[in-house]
């Protein structure tokens, strides 16, 4: 009896998954599709759909870049893919460990896709597993049901090529910057670079790695040949000048770093600095008051040792 009920649920949940409302995608042409999440903070009122999730259609199959913040979002992405193509989903790439980018992974396990990430991603997922699951359940409740950590089996130490048939993707892993698991994806066919959260557009850049390391990576990205970039967060791609966006991000990070250093030099305590550092940047960014204070809280203690 019990087994029968379980079977019933399984059958129904597959049926349910197939009926997920597909995500709205921005088609960039050339087999590239991007869904833009909304700029919500990750706390109460978060809906697991705040980052850019994308897919790339090649002649042999499809690669997904980031999967959103819940199984539900991942299923909606899956549905959006199936409206465009029935080719196999070969790769699911996570640009870093943050929960808004990885918790849709479980929607792609049935495809037997290969999960790909930075060489430190599997470890980072394991270390953060308990906390991520607990706080996402708290924020999302029922909407988080079925979401789980799905770790990469293919790890990128420096660079790696993935073959989609008529196009190849070049994956590059970076030293600690936004996080310790940052990875970019480059598609030469369309000259497009997926930056993950190494590039924030509109949304205040958040630091969970090393601000100095991030500034070094930004310098490196300035020389990247890609014509287009798909950032980790943005409301649109079309007509965007990504090098200019990169400069904006660099300006914010330098302002933040210099202001905190100046505060420490003057003997201003962290609590005060959280309300003063980088405030000249306030009008340029969304969620500034929340994210900027958090950034100061995260990096001030380590800068005290400079």
């Amino acid at each position: 009896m019990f087994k029968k009920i379980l079977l019933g649920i399984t059958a129904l949940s597959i049926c349910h998954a197939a009926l997920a409302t597909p995500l709205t995608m921005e088609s960039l042409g050339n087999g590239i599709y991007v869904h833009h999440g909304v700029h919500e903070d990750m706390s109460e009122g978060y809906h697991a759909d705040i980052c850019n999730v994308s897919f790339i259609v090649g002649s042999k199959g499809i690669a997904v870049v980031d999967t959103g913040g819940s199984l539900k979002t991942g299923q909606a992405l899956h549905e959006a893919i199936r409206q465009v193509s029935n080719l196999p989903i070969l790769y699911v790439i996570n640009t870093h460990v943050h929960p808004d980018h990885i918790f849709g992974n479980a929607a792609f396990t049935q495809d037997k896709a290969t999960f790909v990430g930075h060489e430190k991603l599997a470890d980072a997922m394991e270390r953060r597993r308990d906390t991520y699951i607990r706080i996402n359940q708290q924020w999302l409740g029922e909407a988080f049901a079925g979401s789980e950590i799905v770790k990469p089996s293919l790890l990128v130490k420096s660079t790696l090529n993935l073959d989609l048939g008529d196009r190849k993707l070049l994956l590059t892993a970076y030293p600690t910057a936004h996080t310790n698991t940052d990875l970019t994806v480059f598609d030469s066919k369309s000259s497009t670079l997926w930056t993950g959260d190494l590039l924030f557009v509109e949304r205040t850049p958040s630091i969970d790695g090393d601000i100095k390391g991030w500034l070094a990576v930004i310098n490196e990205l300035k020389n990247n040949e890609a014509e287009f970039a798909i950032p980790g967060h943005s409301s649109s791609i079309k007509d965007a000048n990504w090098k200019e966006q990169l400069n904006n991000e660099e300006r914010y990070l330098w302002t933040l770093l210099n202001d905190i250093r100046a505060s420490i030099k003057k003997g201003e305590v962290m609590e005060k600095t959280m309300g003063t550092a980088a405030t000249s940047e306030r009008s340029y960014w969304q969620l500034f008051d929340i994210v900027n204070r958090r950034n100061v809280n995260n990096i001030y203690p380590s800068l005290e040792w400079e």
Partner: protein
Amino acid sequence: MFKRNLLIGCLSFVAFSNMAHAESDPKKWPLVKEAFFAQRPMADAPFITFVAPRRAESGAQVPLEIAIDQTQADANAIKTLYILVDSNPIPLTATYHLTDKLGKFKLATRIRMEMDSYIRAVGETADGKLFIASVEIRAAGGCGGTVDGDENAIRAAAGKIKMNVESPVKFGNATSATFIIKHPMRTGLQRDLVSQGFVPAFYIQKAAFTYNNEPVMNVDFGVGTSEDPYLRFNFVPSTPGVLSVKAVDNDGKEFNHQTEVKN
């Protein structure tokens, strides 16, 4: 029809069982209180106050300031102050042993918080009376944390101390001192991916502050104190002299530092 009902039933059950408390759970304190202060009465302490964020920006480094509006001459002078975080896996965050050299106690520190919680400051008098003040802070994820980086480099850097005393000093008056010590403060709750167990606890256990060789304050740290433990506290230097600290980690390793206090 049958299946649909079954699914709804199943989903609502999952939703119910997954529904974590989104706010500090007041039911934890009776258990914590019983574990640390079994059956002892506690009176409210309006003279103990906090400065704390309502919602912490980072669970790993939550700034917390505690003040006691009394001196050691007071009839119910607090000799020992316990700071507990109800919802942390290890609630006792630090214990401060006070002396008259501190004047009116005022201290800022940074603590770890795993989830929304009440913070308790429990003061104990010389004759064992207990007084309590509480503050609620919303926070997430400060205790599991990430353990990354070069182990040898972390061990080599551990124990480096910075100490500052505000200047100019007004002798005989409350003077602010800042102490930070480089240390990972490993909780013992962080996952070890090699052994599939947990990284052993590794933390600063004690710091003893003296001024001209007389005790100022002794601190017993728990792992609820953040990485690179930070203390900013007032003390009252009566004459020029030397503020010294001796810190000890749970391996018994000692770290010393001195700061000259002059005109």
